[in-house]
C-alpha cells in the first residue's frame, strides 16, 4: 500500500499531465530495463526497482486426451513476501492468480492455439503418448509497479535461454504401449521465441496514459489496460484491470498506443537478451 499526501498526489498527477513524470521520464518512456540470464532456462528482469525472476522447466508427460497432438504449458507466478509484507502466507494468492491468468491468456492464445506465443504442437513428441510439459514459474522479488510487463519480459528471456533436449523415439513400439524414449544429454534444440509477445500495460491517470508506472503512479490510476503484441504487430491478448469504465474510443486509442510502444520494447528487450546471453558465454 502506498500512502501519499494530497500534495504528492497532485504532484504526480500534474507531472503526468505535463508529460514530465516525477522521475524525469516522459509518459511513454520505460525505466531502464536490465536482463540477466542464468543457467538453462532462467532469467532475471529489472525495470527500475521492480524485479522478477522466471524459470522454465521441461518434463516428459502425457498429452491430454482432448488435445493428443499438443504439449502442455503451465504458468505459475508466486509473489514473494520479500516484495511486500502483505504477501506473506496466503496474502499474495489473489495477485498471483491474477498475474498467472493474465500471462496464460497472453502467451497461450485461443482455444485452437491460434496466436499462441508458445506453439504447443512443437512440444509434441509422439501423438497421444509423449509430449513435453513446460513449467513456467515466475517469482516477484520486488514490486515497484508494472509487474505484468516485467514478468512477460522475464518469461520471454527465460524461454529464449531454454534448450529442450533432443528426444529419440524407439521406432518399433506397439500401438497400444507407451513408446520408449531416449532423452539426449548433449543435443539441445533452442526454443523458438520469435512468436512470444511482449506485454505493454498502459495506466490511465487523469486524462492521460503512461507506460511502466511505478507503485506511486499506480496508486493514482483510474484504470489500466494490458496489451500483448507480437512481432507482426498483432494483438494476442488484452485484459483490463478493474477500475473505472472507459470510453470505447479511448480503449481503441490505448490499443494503438500500446502497439506503437511495444515495437520499441520488443527491440530493446531483444538487444538486452542478446547482450545478456553474450556476457554469459564469455564467463
Amino acid at each position, binding site marked *: 500500500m502506498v500512502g501519499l499526501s494530497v500534495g504528492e498526489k497532485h504532484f504526480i498527477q500534474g507531472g503526468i499531465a505535463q508529460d514530465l513524470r516525477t522521475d524525469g521520464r516522459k509518459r511513454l518512456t520505460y525505466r531502464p530495463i536490465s536482463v540477466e540470464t542464468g543457467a538453462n532456462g532462467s532469467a532475471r528482469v529489472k525495470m527500475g526497482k521492480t524485479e522478477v525472476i522466471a524459470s522454465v522447466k521441461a518434463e516428459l508427460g502425457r498429452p491430454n486426451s482432448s488435445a493428443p497432438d499438443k504439449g502442455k504449458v503451465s504458468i505459475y507466478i508466486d509473489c514473494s513476501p520479500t516484495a511486500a509484507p502483505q504477501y506473506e502466507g496466503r496474502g499474495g494468492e489473489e495477485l498471483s492468480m491474477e498475474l498467472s491468468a493474465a500471462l496464460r491468456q497472453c502467451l497461450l*492464445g485461443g482455444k485452437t492455439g*491460434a496466436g499462441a506465443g508458445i506453439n504447443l504442437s512443437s512440444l509434441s513428441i509422439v501423438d497421444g503418448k509423449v509430449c513435453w510439459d513446460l513449467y513456467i514459474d515466475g517469482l516477484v522479488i520486488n514490486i515497484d509497479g508494472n509487474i505484468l510487463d516485467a514478468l512477460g519480459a522475464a518469461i520471454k528471456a527465460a524461454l529464449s535461454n531454454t534448450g529442450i533436449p533432443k528426444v529419440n523415439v524407439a521406432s518399433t513400439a506397439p500401438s497400444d504401449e507407451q513408446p520408449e524414449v531416449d532423452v539426449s544429454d548433449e543435443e539441445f534444440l533452442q526454443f523458438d521465441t520469435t512468436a512470444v509477445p511482449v506485454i505493454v500495460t498502459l495506466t490511465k491517470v487523469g486524462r492521460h496514459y503512461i507506460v511502466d508506472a511505478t507503485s506511486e503512479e499506480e496508486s493514482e490510476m483510474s484504470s489500466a489496460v494490458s496489451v500483448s503484441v507480437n512481432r507482426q504487430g498483432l494483438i494476442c491478448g488484452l485484459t483490463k484491470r478493474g477500475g473505472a469504465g472507459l470510453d470505447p474510443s479511448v480503449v481503441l486509442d490505448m490499443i494503438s498506443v500500446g502497439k506503437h510502444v511495444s515495437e520499441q520494447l520488443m527491440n530493446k528487450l531483444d538487444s538486452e537478451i542478446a547482450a545478456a546471453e553474450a556476457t554469459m558465454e564469455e564467463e
Partner: protein
Amino acid sequence: MAAKGGAAPATYSPSPTTFKKKRPPIFTDVDWVRPDGRDFHQCRPAFLRTGAVNAASGSAYAEFGNTKVIVSIFGPRESKKAMMYSDTGRLNCNVTYTTFATPVRGQASSDNKEISSQLHKSLEGAIMLDTFPKTTVDVFALVLESGGCDLPVVISCASLALADAGIMMFDLVAAVSVSCLGKNLVIDPVSEEENYQDGSLMITCLPSRNEVTQLTITGEWSSPKIHEAMELCLDACSKLGKIMRSCLKESASTSQE
C-alpha cells in the same frame, strides 16, 4: 480399457462427445451454419427474471439458450472481522458451477477463481462503492447449466441482481462476447463454437454511459478486426441493456400491484 483396469477412473461418461479432436472443417467455411441455426451476428434469445431467490437481498435468473445462471446478492453487510477499515464498500464475488453444468460431470469446477475475479473486475467500475462504506456486498453466482458464454451471462445477470437488491450503480452492466472462427466473427457463441474458437473478445459495458468496464481478448487479432468485434459487441450490449431495463421495470410494476 478403462472398464477393466482397476487404476482407471472409477466411472466414465458413455457419451462420445469428448472424443472429437479436430474441429469439423465446416467451421472455417464462409457459409457454414451455426449449430443452433442463428445468423453470425444474432444473439440467443434472452430470458431474464429478477427475484429468483427469496432468501437473498436481491437476485436474478438468466437464461440464454442452454446457459442458465442464478445470481444472489447478500448485503451490504458487515465485512469479515479480519478486513481492514475501508471508507469504501467491498465487493465479494464468487462463481460456482453445478456438477451437472457440463456434458461431463464435474468438469467445470477448476477455474472458478479466475471467473470470480473477472466478475469482480467487470462489476466494480459500475457500483458506487462509496455508498456503503465499511460493509461488503456479496455477489454469488451459480451456473446451473453451461451452454457457452457463461461469463458474460453471469455478469449481466449479476448486475440485474444488484439492481434488484437496491445497490447503487452508475448503470446496468451488459456483457457480450464474440468468437473468432477462421475468418468469421460469431456473436454470443455456444459451447461447441467456443471449443473450436481461434480467439475471443468479451466486452462488459455500461450501455447508457457508453463506458467499457472490462475488455478481454484472447487469440491473435489485427486492429481492424478488434474494431469490428467491438462495434458488434457494443451494439449487442446496448440491446441487451434495453432488455435488462425492461425486465426491471416489469418486476417493479408487478410488485406495486
